[in-house]
């Protein structure tokens, strides 16, 4: 089964008590989709989760960044987004260009100056990048999917909301984790995904056939 996919401009609701959420807009008496994505209705709010798209920073998100410029008062960090993050530092030599960090976004202003904090170095593992909008599916409700991935692969997995995932484990474990994550990325718009991921991790199915693949 697949959840309902809509395209920009399509009418989602004409009911008066329904509120437009993310990925939608109000056009006179109707709510229309503004993105190509999957419709979700939570309580009275209708929203559309895009199937693809860039990461746009939001305060409170954890992201995985790469230091690109080191300045006297801090470093500029690539956060896999059109916008660049800034991590204030006390000393100039705290970080070096190329350092991989897990960070928290503590402020985003109206022109998207992004301030980062809470840096934690990531090393000795594999960095992969997925489509950022798939991250909520990879994490799952109350991190349920992530727990399944961690237990099923014995890997340490750090997830950035910006589509970057860092995996630590033995080479085979890392490979298995990556394959499971790619499966979720491909099939994020389908239902019954949890069971398929479990089955994959238990070796019951191979890397998923064409179930809900992006063509």
């Amino acid at each position, binding site marked *: *089964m697949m959840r309902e996919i809509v*395209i920009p*401009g399509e009418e989602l609701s004409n009911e008066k008590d329904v509120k437009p959420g993310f990925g939608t807009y109000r056009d006179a008496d109707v709510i*229309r989709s503004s*993105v190509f994505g999957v419709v979700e209705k939570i309580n009275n709010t209708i929203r559309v989760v*895009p199937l693809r798209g860039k990461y746009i920073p939001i305060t409170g998100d954890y992201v995985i960044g790469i230091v690109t410029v080191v300045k006297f008062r801090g470093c500029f960090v690539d956060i896999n987004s059109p916008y660049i993050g800034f991590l204030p530092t006390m000393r100039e030599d705290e970080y070096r260009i190329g350092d991989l960090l897990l960070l928290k976004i503590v402020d985003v202003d109206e022109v998207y100056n992004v301030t980062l904090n809470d840096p934690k170095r990531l090393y000795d593992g594999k960095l992969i990048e997925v489509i950022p909008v798939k991250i909520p599916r990879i994490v799952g409700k109350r991190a349920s999917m992530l727990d399944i991935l961690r237990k099923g692969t014995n890997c340490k997995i750090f997830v950035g909301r910006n589509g970057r995932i860092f995996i630590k484990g033995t080479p085979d474990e890392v490979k298995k984790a990556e394959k499971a994550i790619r499966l979720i990325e491909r099939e994020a718009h389908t239902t019954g995904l949890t069971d398929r991921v479990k089955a994959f991790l238990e070796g019951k199915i191979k890397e998923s056939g064409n179930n809900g693949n992006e063509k």
Partner: protein
Amino acid sequence: MGMKSDIELIKDGKRLDGRGVNDLRPITIKAGVLERADGSCYVEWGGNKVLAAVYGPQECLPKHIASPHRAVLTYRYNMAPFSVEDRKRPGPDRRSIEISKISKEALERVVLLEKFPNTMIKVFVEILQADAGTRCAALTAASVALADAGIPMRDLVTACAAGKIGGEIVLDLGKKEDNFGEADVPVAILPHTKEIVLMQMDGQLTPEEYRKALDLSIDGCTKVYELQKKALRERYVEGVD
């Protein structure tokens, strides 16, 4: 347009390729065809073969063209040297620059640029094979590619031309019709509001003929829109539970 010829472009309501006056050429649209682009689309429209790619939103370079209020949209319409019978010199010519400008302006109406200040969104369209009506095929492909990239839009943009051949107003001119016909009216609209976001006209029409051509091209757009929708939905095949 308007070249002289003895060819009878339309006879008893049938055109050279057998189409009636209100018929489109065969069109196929496929979304998500390129690996590296953020969004992409391939359109075959009669003999036209058109590939569109979207990158962004991304950091705006050069920085001085950035806007603190909205994303900058760029559009590059480019014809491959082998897309036409006589080799086209590579790179932008005056025609491509004009088409790129008006196509960009058409898309600016739908893309919610204000959501991404200080960034840029780049649209590239390559005409691999040209067979009249390339600007409409290109814009149709570009709008599907933008949606595929997950970029927020008010609506899709759908394009189609109508024109005049052998004294009659017809939909979607083919190559010979374009060369030897009397007028061409390429149009792009937003399918839900029928707003006109691109319109050009060249040739000779009375005001009544122009109105008829405009209405016919809007009808054509509505048909093309159904194919755009189908292409996007088919990008994600139904999963087996």
